[in-house]
């Protein structure tokens, strides 16, 4: 073989190896720590910094400095606190609205109003339930007594159980109106 041909073959081989090496590089970028990807995926955009750290901690056995990055991208941690206050105010307003409504319903004497009052005996808010018990008493329909008894039997709150049983006892008594009517009737 001529030396020129040998040289050409060697150059072609070298060019081929170089090409393979260059093509391989982009396919394998430097390994990004798994923690960043996972934390960014888990952390909600508005989550408080503390919460993000708490989420990152168990996922991140790897170096900490990278795991902290998502915290910096989060909004100021003050925002969730403001949201909590707003939520509390909204909750208080909703509770007050229910209480106002119950106090209106107790003045009525129709079955629909009683049903609406009795429904609120199961409200998640303890204050609403307490007002609903009072509204049931003031409504003054003895058909509500079995409902109060059933609730007293199932509730685990001792204070609420007492309030329910006191309501049953009070509603079982003759009322001033009934006593007065009976007296007037006996006089005639």
């Amino acid at each position: 073989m001529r030396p020129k041909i040998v040289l050409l073959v060697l150059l072609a081989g070298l060019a081929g190896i170089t090409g393979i090496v260059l093509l391989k590089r982009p396919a394998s970028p430097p390994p990004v720590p798994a923690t960043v990807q996972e934390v960014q995926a888990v952390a909600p955009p508005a989550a408080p910094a503390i919460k993000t750290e708490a989420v990152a901690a168990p996922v991140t056995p790897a170096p900490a400095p990278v795991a902290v990055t998502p915290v910096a991208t989060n909004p100021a941690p003050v925002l969730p606190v403001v949201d909590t206050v707003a939520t509390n105010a909204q909750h208080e307003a909703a509770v007050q609205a229910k209480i106002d409504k119950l106090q209106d319903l107790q003045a009525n004497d129709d079955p629909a109003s009683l049903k609406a009052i009795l429904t609120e005996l199961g409200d998640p808010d303890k204050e609403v339930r307490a007002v609903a018990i009072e509204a049931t008493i003031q409504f003054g329909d003895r058909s509500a007594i079995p409902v109060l008894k059933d609730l007293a039997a199932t509730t685990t709150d001792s204070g609420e159980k007492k309030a329910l049983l006191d309501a049953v006892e009070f509603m079982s008594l003759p009322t001033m109106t009934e006593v007065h009517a009976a007296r007037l009737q006996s006089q005639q």
Partner: protein
Amino acid sequence: MKLNQVITGCALAAGLMAFAPVQSQALVISNSVVSTMNIKATVYYVNDKNKVVKISVSNKDILKYDGAPKGAKLADWEGDAVIISDNAIWEDLTVDGVLYVSTDEYSDNEIDGNNDSYKYADTGTVEVEYGSDGYIPYYGDSIGDNDYGFDVTGVYTDSGSGSAVKSGYQTESDKFSASSLAGEAYDYEVGYVPVTATASGSGSGKVLY
């Protein structure tokens, strides 16, 4: 209308109903919040068979005896006990000598916030006087001048708040409770007898600051 449009409409309506806020019934009259009042009393006496008899007295008894219209309610307005009917004062029971609630404050505290907002709490003693026919000790009369009446005292707790002033308005709220009241009652058939009672109330509303 296509079926899927009907379903979407129904779903939307159901969603709106599920999230519809409870309509607030807050009432303000002459820039003063009206607080609904709840009174209940148990009157005790011994009958001719040596048996202890109890009679209950609640808002509806007081309202019915007074001749208040259907749907009327007892309330506190500017320190007077009133009957509210159709969102207006139907009768001032304190002026007419039927019901009077007076408090003697012993301890209180107020925490002020931004834009004239505040929160307060106080406690003391309360006296509730009821005379079915308009005779109460507050006016120098005796509860024995009525067919039915009572005069009870005890400890009360009270708390409330005022929101930050916004556009010249402030939302005020107040809660009052006296759960262990006791005293004497009068029943024209049996005379003076012992009575236990509770009184509570709450209200909220937007007032011009």
